[in-house]
């Protein structure tokens, strides 16, 4: 009998907050910039320097926790996590241990037609480390000859969000990561740019025979810098573990690095021989107390979150998969949708335009452009009243983005407006019928397909600008 394996995946997310200043000192939070210019005694870990927590960062972790349906601890404490690494100048990271700010939340994640609730174990506040640049042999961490350190990132506020091991596939893990990223971006507390490292994902992966409860040995995988590589790394790690177990071998508990080029994870043989972090309460920072009214004020300030937006859109009659895409679309796109609907555009049609053609067209453009809700509303109006065919409307939209002109002007310029004026079409139909007496005779004796031929002739005589639906209708009436 062959064993069917079930992957068990948990994700740890590190989010760099985009506050003005660092977590425990007044140095500026920057991305890029001249190395080692945003540093002071506190973030360099110089003796005697004392940390003081950034009030905005504390509000923002609560915002994140609330958006993830977490409980905010009434009382929370910073701890020191002790380990030696060159990018950690104090030899400890100020983090949290048994009293994190946020606990017990969840995020609903949808893959295909299935939505599953993924538990959030905790979200805690900590500080980022400095940045290492590995020199020599192409900058690969394993073969570097020396390491350069930039401490501009040292002490940047970092929120770590730890999921429960509730994810069951690489695809689901990717969906969770993307939804979480969008949520954080929505809250406006981080740039949340994976390629820039302002949001980072590590995965804990194990496998077990399906139907069993006990967890297999977990492996932590790191170094995924896109959602695609996150999914690939997890899939590859699942395959590796299954192959080991089926070959009668054991999975070793370790940290593995994802190698994008090789498409595989490889073992990170760290000099750090122990992960005994010897946590203890940080004596330089005072305990944190979150009053209920303060938490409720922060909750009231939350924006509409993607999940709420999605159900609101579905309530407006937008198809589920369109609602999902639009709920997570860029804010500019969503604004266009909301404005168009406020002006009276049918929500389902407006959503299809925004999530479909408008999203696709803006991505293809070389210079960023957007149509506002009023312009989209007018475009939709022209398609609804038959003046634009749906294919012509797509062409008009692209040109609206390029030129910044309104639908009417663009459609006129491109000569795409359909003749939907009944009297004009009546004349064209008459002309065709008068010249096609034989075809008319055939239709009347029961040859239905002749109608298509006649429609074609009217379309031709109007230079393709007649509304084919209307032509069809008029012809049937006249021949009827």
């Amino acid at each position, binding site marked *: 009998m062959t064993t069917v394996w079930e992957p068990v995946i948990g994700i740890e997310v590190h989010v760099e907050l985009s506050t003005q200043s660092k977590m425990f000192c007044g140095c500026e939070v920057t991305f890029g910039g001249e190395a*080692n210019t945003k540093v002071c005694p506190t973030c360099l870990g110089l003796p005697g320097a004392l940390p003081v927590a950034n009030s905005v960062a504390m509000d923002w972790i609560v915002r994140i926790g609330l958006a993830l349906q977490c409980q905010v601890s009434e009382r929370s404490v910073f701890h020191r996590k002790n380990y030696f690494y060159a990018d950690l100048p104090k030899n400890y990271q100020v983090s949290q241990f048994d009293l994190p700010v946020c606990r017990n939340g969840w995020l609903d994640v949808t893959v295909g037609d299935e939505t599953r609730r993924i538990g959030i174990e905790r979200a805690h506040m900590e500080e980022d480390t400095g940045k290492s640049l*590995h020199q020599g042999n192409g900058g690969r961490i394993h073969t570097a000859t020396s390491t350069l*350190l*930039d401490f501009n990132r040292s002490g940047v506020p970092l929120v770590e969000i730890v999921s429960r091991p509730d994810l069951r596939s690489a695809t689901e893990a990717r969906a969770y990561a993307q939804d979480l990223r969008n949520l954080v971006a929505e809250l406006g507390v981080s740039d949340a740019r994976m390629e820039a490292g302002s949001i980072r994902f590590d995965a804990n992966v194990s496998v077990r025979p399906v139907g069993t409860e006990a967890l297999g040995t977990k492996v932590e995988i790191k170094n995924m810098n896109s959602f695609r590589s996150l999914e690939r790394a997890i899939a590859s790690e699942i395959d590796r573990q299954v192959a080991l177990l089926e070959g009668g071998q054991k999975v070793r508990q370790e940290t593995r690095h994802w190698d994008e080029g090789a498409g595989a994870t490889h073992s990170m043989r760290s000099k750090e021989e122990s992960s005994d972090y010897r946590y203890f309460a940080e004596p330089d920072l005072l305990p944190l107390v979150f009053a209920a009214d303060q938490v409720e004020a922060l909750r009231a300030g939350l924006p509409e979150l993607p999940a709420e937006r999605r159900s609101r859109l579905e309530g407006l009659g937008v198809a589920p998969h369109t609602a999902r895409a639009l709920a997570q679309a860029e804010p500019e796109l969503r604004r266009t949708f909301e404005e168009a609907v406020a002006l009276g555009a049918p929500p389902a049609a407006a959503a299809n335009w925004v999530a479909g053609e408008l999203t696709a067209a803006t991505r293809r453009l070389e210079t960023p452009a957007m149509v506002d809700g009023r312009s989209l509303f007018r475009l939709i109006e022209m398609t609804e009243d038959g003046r634009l065919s749906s294919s012509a409307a797509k062409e008009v939209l692209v040109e609206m983005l390029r030129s910044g002109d309104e639908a009417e002007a663009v459609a006129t310029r491109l000569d795409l407006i359909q003749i939907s004026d009944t009297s004009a079409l009546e004349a064209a139909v008459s002309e065709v019928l008068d010249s096609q007496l034989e075809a008319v005779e055939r239709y009347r004796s029961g040859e239905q397909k002749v109608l298509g031929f006649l429609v074609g002739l009217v379309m031709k005589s109007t230079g393709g600008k007649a509304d084919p639906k209307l032509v069809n209708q008029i012809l049937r009436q006249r021949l009827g």
Partner: protein
Amino acid sequence: MPVDIDIAYVARLARLGLSAEELAFYRDQLGVILEHAAKVQEVDTEGFEATAHPLGIVNQFRPDEIRPSLDRGEVLAAAPATDGVYFVVPPALEG
């Protein structure tokens, strides 16, 4: 009450290379401290909340405002090795 200590492990965690004599010396010294801690732990603390800090105050925050950072030249002057821009250290991982 004598306390069992793996002093070599503790030294390794602290990156201290100690001789056999030093290990024995610090085992005894640390032992005294831990015995004291063990004695404190015998006190019945039932009904008392854990204290993370001796002070009664909480929530000391600073506003999110940028303050001037140090001059890079000054910062790097204290480093054992630099290239004028970065701190330079030996590679972090074994090959």
